[in-house]
């Protein structure tokens, strides 16, 4: 049997690694392992059958055993105790205050948003970091890295403002005839080289994490620094580079919300024990997310925020049924909330929920997109892994015949036509942040003739909706020739 060997030619000497030339072992990454924390895409447990290898007969036995045990005693895909939250009418959303439930809902599917944070609930960590900093020393929270980067950008902009103001002043003096034009040219060259150095240094400080929207190419291009400029303005370059080094150290121990993992990354100081911070934050689920978890997946129980009148101290409160949630959420999706719980087919909640359910069932992670001026953002795996690829805009489409009748026309909630300038603005914003705009038309059915006092099937109502998506990209004739 031929054995492949790596035969070295005799006239080439292979350098043997001596202890002095050996590379030092790469330091272990102390950052969080997102693939491990967010290994489950939804808060459900899957029990796949083991693989079957034809060459291995034991795998067949294993497969048969697992299949039969699933038939006889099927393992549950749902958590033993469903997660719980309450419906807050004051904020028109569902609050989850139990820290374990909040963490589980965030980790398995990126549901909800911390009320006082940008996305992941991290207020207690930041508050502790702030109080420790006031006392002197302490751990840095992840948001401090953002703050440092913004501060650097602000200093750079101020320096640029000062340089430009000086140049304008010099130009004015030249025009008044007080300065020699040649001196001005030299000064201008010096300024432009300083600006070039600053603009070149600046992109290297781009944050690799999901808090910034710069492409990786810029970071690579920005590494080159003009040597001439270092001589001119050494202090400014050095200070920027020093900040860069200190900032990379800040990025390494990226802390997250729970205090447990935070204490692992940094040694706990003695002040920790007497810092008792009452958590002012909770996880807030939008109405669509909460309905998806409750109706679509069945892992969330939503209770009323204030217990009903007949509540005895020892009785367990009852969660809302899906029908009640359907009515309440449609009612509270307006601002101010509509007075009666009548459900119109083009309520904002219904349109948003149909689109949310559609994209979630296709496997996308759907997050609210008010920060970019659109309805939803679609992530491939989650916000911690990559930036959102698509930005979804939801528009109702009144295609059924009922909506064109005079009665139907007056009942339409959205009656104004969107114009070209609006679409152009939205598209411009999305292309600026490197996302593709998806216009999602939801075909609205005619009003329901369902009696809401009797139980009805929510699915039969949702089935009447249809979703059509269109990707909108700007096409420029002179640039997109190929």
């Amino acid at each position, binding site marked *: 049997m031929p054995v492949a060997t790596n035969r070295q030619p005799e006239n080439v000497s292979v350098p043997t690694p001596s202890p002095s030339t050996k590379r030092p072992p790469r330091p272990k990454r102390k950052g969080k392992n997102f693939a491990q924390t967010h290994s489950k895409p939804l808060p459900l447990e899957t029990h796949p059958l083991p693989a079957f290898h034809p060459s291995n007969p034991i795998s067949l036995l294993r497969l048969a055993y697992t299949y039969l045990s699933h038939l006889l005693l099927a393992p549950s895909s749902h958590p033993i105790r469903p997660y719980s939250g309450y419906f807050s009418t004051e904020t028109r959303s569902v*609050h989850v205050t139990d820290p374990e439930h909040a963490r589980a809902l965030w980790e398995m599917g990126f549901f909800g948003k911390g009320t006082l944070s940008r996305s992941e609930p991290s207020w207690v960590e930041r508050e502790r970091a702030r109080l420790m900093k006031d006392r002197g020393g302490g751990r840095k929270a992840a948001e401090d890295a953002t703050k440092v980067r913004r501060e650097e950008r602000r200093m750079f902009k101020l320096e640029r403002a*000062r340089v430009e103001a000086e140049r304008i002043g010099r130009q004015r003096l030249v025009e008044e005839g007080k300065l020699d034009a040649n001196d001005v040219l030299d000064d201008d060259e010096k300024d432009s080289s300083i600006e070039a150095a600053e603009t070149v240094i600046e992109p290297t400080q781009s944050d690799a994490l999901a808090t910034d929207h710069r492409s990786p190419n810029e970071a690579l291009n920005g590494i080159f620094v003009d040597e001439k400029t270092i001589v001119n303005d050494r202090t400014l370059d050095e200070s920027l580079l020093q900040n860069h080094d200190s900032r990379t150290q800040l990025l390494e121990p990226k802390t997250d919300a729970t205090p447990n993992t935070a204490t692992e990354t940094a040694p706990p100081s003695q002040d920790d024990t007497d810092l008792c911070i009452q958590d002012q934050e909770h996880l807030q689920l939008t109405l669509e997310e909460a309905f998806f978890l409750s109706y679509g997946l069945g892992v969330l129980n939503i209770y009323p925020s*204030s217990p009903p009148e007949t509540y005895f101290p020892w009785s367990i409160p009852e969660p809302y049924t899906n029908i009640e949630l359907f009515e309440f959420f449609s009612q509270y999706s307006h601002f101010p909330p509509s007075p009666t719980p009548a459900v119109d087919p083009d309520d*904002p909640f219904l349109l948003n929920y149909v689109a949310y359910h559609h994209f979630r069932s296709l496997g996308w992670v759907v997050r609210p997109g008010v920060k970019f001026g659109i309805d939803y953002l679609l992530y491939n795996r989650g916000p911690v892994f990559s930036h959102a690829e698509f930005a979804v805009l939801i528009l109702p489409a009144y295609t059924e015949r009922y909506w064109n009748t005079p009665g139907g026309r007056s009942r339409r909630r959205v009656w104004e036509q969107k114009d070209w300038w609006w679409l152009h603005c939205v598209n411009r914003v999305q292309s600026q942040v490197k996302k593709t705009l998806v216009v999602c038309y939801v075909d609205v059915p005619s009003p329901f003739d369902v009696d809401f006092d009797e139980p009805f099937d929510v699915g039969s109502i949702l089935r009447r909706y249809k979703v059509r998506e269109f990707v909108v990209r700007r096409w420029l004739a002179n640039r997109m020739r190929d």
Partner: protein
Amino acid sequence: MGAPSIAPSALQSFLGSTGSDSSQETQLLQLALQIAHNLRYQHNWDDIRIHYDSTTRIKSQPPIRPLISGFPPQRLYVHPDEQIEVLQKQKDEGKAGMPDLPREREWVLPSHLREKWSLRRFGEVFNAISTVPPQEDGEALFDDSKRAAHTKEGGDDSMEGAPTNKWRISQPKRLLLATLDDDSTVVYYIVHDGIVKPRQN
């Protein structure tokens, strides 16, 4: 199976003190309180006060929309000419960069994403407010006695010095439009009553 853990959150208890009728006035009040809570805890504003009397002058908007005023931790808006003046002064003294400017009290207009604003409505709000929010007017929302002592330790005596800033008085009125979405995102925009010179940086 124990009792489900549905303890109300801090925000819910804060809002629950306003009563539970769903009239439009209560909704606007709860909106203002939610934005005040966000300002205090997420952005560390000081001395947040809620004002009712300035809004009674807005006659065409019958439900009274309370306004908030407070102290941001840093200065929010620097006029470009003021920026140039400060930078020039720094250069004359031989220092680099920008000093920390004294912070100024700001108006905050609470709003919801689903509301529609028009120029007329904005105009009415601007007519009803003064250029600088009054120091002692309105009702204080949070008990900030510990925080106030702490900031005074840092040598921050800007609370008395702010109204004498000539840039604040000569420029058009400004307020911070705080727009709330139901997923608890609050988006802040600075709105001026008129055209202002744009900033280059």
